[in-house]
């Protein structure tokens, strides 16, 4: 199954700044998914990133706040823009293991905004 490398693993950022999170997969995948896990909350899908097209965002998430790049079939970035303390969360990328077999996740980026 696919192995995901995600970085940075954690960061502390000043409000108003932006952070870009990188996700590298060891095999080519059609879709990559970005999730957010707020403290004490469940994982929530932010957007789905297909190579060669605009990302599809879930309700409550917008491109200006969470721009996504997907330059090739093994790599994606998520930027958290103009950060506020409410953006403090764990951000995770995910890919499908195999059709109908489930999804694997990166190790996550723990973001703290001060």
């Amino acid at each position, binding site marked *: 199954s696919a192995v995901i490398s995600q970085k940075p693993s954690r960061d502390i950022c000043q409000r108003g700044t932006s952070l870009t999170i990188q996700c590298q997969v060891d095999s080519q995948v059609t879709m990559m*998914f970005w999730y957010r896990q707020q403290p004490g*909350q469940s*994982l929530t899908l932010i957007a789905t990133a297909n190579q060669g097209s605009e990302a599809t965002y879930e309700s409550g998430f917008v491109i200006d706040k969470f721009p996504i790049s997907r330059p090739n079939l093994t790599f994606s970035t998520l930027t958290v823009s103009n950060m506020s303390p409410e953006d403090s969360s764990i951000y995770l990328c995910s890919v499908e293991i195999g059709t109908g077999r489930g999804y694997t*996740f990166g190790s*996550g980026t723990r973001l703290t905004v001060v």
Partner: protein
Amino acid sequence: EDQVTQSPEALRLQEGESSSLNCSYTVSGLRGLFWYRQDPGKGPEFLFTLYSAGEEKEKERLKATLTKKESFLHITAPKPEDSATYLCAVQTPRNTDKLIFGTGTRLQVFP
């Protein structure tokens, strides 16, 4: 609205004391139900996928079962290394690439 509820929120077990975690779901059709284990500071680790009522899957001390309304994760004779948060997620035909997660059960197993 599709919803996943996990119980209990937290569970403390003595080593060797078997128990079950519950995941109940209300969805507009079920395409798959997924169980994950998450250790502190790490991403979720895939455990099982269940597709239809009556299906069961096993892995070491873990056994997952599925009915039309809920899933159970049975832990037999747990060890301290089984301590983690266990997450349940569902996938529906309407959103085939979106997992809807519950908030998890935090399991602590004491020696």
